């Protein structure tokens, strides 16, 4: 059976494959823009309502600005004030602020998640006791949690250390981030087969040695997707927490603020939304970068 060149390239991996994936991604994005504009041009001006429920949006410039207007708006000043920055710079600044908080939240999530996974791997009893609570923790709505964390934080004052509002946001972000890491790390740590754990047993290797030589390397393929998910979660958590705690300076704040101005400046509200998307991609992408350095831990399991 002869393979098509494209398939052969895919089997071998490598550069052409990567280029193909990037161009497909770009094509998907272009398609989205086309669909947006086509609907805006051809759709009913007042949208479509069925039994009082609007199922299709209005196509006015207010509801659906032209995609080029949204891009053009990025390069105009934020306000009419003389010293106003261009919108894109404002969005970038806010994004970096949020990214910093999300990164702190991600790292807290990593520490707590891996810590919980280690405890649960070490003591089966801890797994039985903890795992249901970990799963249950994610059913608490973030919006309900934010004011509580903020008011608790306001009372924390240890010596010279004073709780900052951004710390509440980071903590809430970590609340979303730790979950996939704890679950992924636990599965990964438990993934070695009996043959491998017995082998370490015959080497008279203790828990720590087995962890370092066997369990942690075996956990890498499980950890990487968990870390990526956690990174995206941390960004979402940080944005939502910024909104619900009212923290200034981040992307969550300006999303709300510009949305309030949308009646006069509809394209402006899309700036921070693009920022949030880029932020999520950036966070997930940096994990992919981390993964590319750990290639040898992701080799296929040996089957014989």
């Amino acid at each position, binding site marked *: 059976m002869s393979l098509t060149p494209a398939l052969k390239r895919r089997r071998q991996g490598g550069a052409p494959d990567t280029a193909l994936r990037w161009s497909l991604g770009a094509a998907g994005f272009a398609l989205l823009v086309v669909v947006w504009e086509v609907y805006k041009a051809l759709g009913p001006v007042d949208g479509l309502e069925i039994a009082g429920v609007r199922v299709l949006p209005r196509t006015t410039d207010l509801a659906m600005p032209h995609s080029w207007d949204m891009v053009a708006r990025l390069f105009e000043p934020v306000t009419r004030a003389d010293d106003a920055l261009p919108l894109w710079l404002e969005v970038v600044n806010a994004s970096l602020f949020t990214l910093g908080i999300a990164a702190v939240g991600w790292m807290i999530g990593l520490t707590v998640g891996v810590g919980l996974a280690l405890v649960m791997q070490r003591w089966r009893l801890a797994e039985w006791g903890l795992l249901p609570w970990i799963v249950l923790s994610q059913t608490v709505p973030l919006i309900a949690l934010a004011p509580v964390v903020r008011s608790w934080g306001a009372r924390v004052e240890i010596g010279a250390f004073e709780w900052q509002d951004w710390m509440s946001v980071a903590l809430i972000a970590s609340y979303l981030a730790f979950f996939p890491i704890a679950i992924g790390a636990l599965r990964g740590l438990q993934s070695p087969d009996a*043959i491998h754990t*017995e082998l370490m047993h015959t*080497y008279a290797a203790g828990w720590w040695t087995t962890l370092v*030589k066997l369990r942690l390397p075996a956990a890498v393929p499980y950890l990487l997707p968990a870390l990526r998910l956690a990174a995206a979660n941390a960004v979402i958590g940080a944005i939502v927490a910024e909104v619900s705690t009212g923290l200034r300076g981040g992307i969550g704040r300006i999303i709300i603020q510009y949305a309030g101005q949308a009646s006069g400046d509809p394209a402006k509200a899309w700036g921070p939304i693009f920022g949030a998307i880029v932020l999520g991609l950036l966070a997930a992408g940096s994990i992919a970068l981390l993964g590319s350095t750990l290639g040898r*831990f992701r*080799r296929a399991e*040996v089957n*014989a």
Partner: protein
Amino acid sequence: MNTAPAHTEHAVVVSALGKTFSVKSGDVVALDDITLTVEAGEFVSLIGPSGCGKSTLLRLIGDLDQPTSGTLEVFGKSPRQARLDQDYGIAFQQAGLLPWRTVRANIELPLEVHGVAAKARTARANELLDLVGLGEFAEKYPDQLSGGMQQRVAIARALAERPALLLMDEPFGALDEMTREYMQTELVRICAETKAAVVFVTHSIPEAVFLSDRVVVMSPRPGRIERIVPMQLGSTSARADDLREDVSFFEMVTAVREALHAGSEHAPRGVELR
């Protein structure tokens, strides 16, 4: 590193050993009244139908399971102490190599765990790579090797600490017949060089005959030693492929087969005789 036990003592002494597993439907007697001595440097195969407890016996010797009754000594020590002293190396049916480690790093794993210095590890790994004939594959990963090669790496790894006893649980069971015969010839050579005693679990009569000084024939339910058949084929280290076509070889195959069938006659499958 361990101090190599003197080769004059017994490698394994098993007496009146019993092992019972508790399952939902009651107790299952896996091994009953097993008595067996393996001399230092001797090659002993355990053979028998499924459920005769041959793998269980191997696991008890390796301290991977605890006996219910009787005594078990490995080089005059408890199996646990022998394990802690690294007196034995072990190889399973699955090669069980770590996929993220190269061939070399896999062989070095036990040495690394026991804190052997990097230089000494490299030297020992080189010796072992030569011994199993995989020198040029040292930097390859397990998924780049054939099943037979992977199993050779596993054997090299089992030999890393120069154990005086090798425990092997159907190590060639997953290989095709040609590779299997090749590996058997290799194992005879390796054992002659290392002078290690071997306890070898297998399903294959010709394999047991070709490799062993003595073949222990076991019968199931409960797992018992049916007969111990000494192989009258001369020294194991002098054996080569031509032995497989020798009349004496076929005589021994017949002897083991008859012992196996004698075992299954008065212990039909599924019938509890106790």
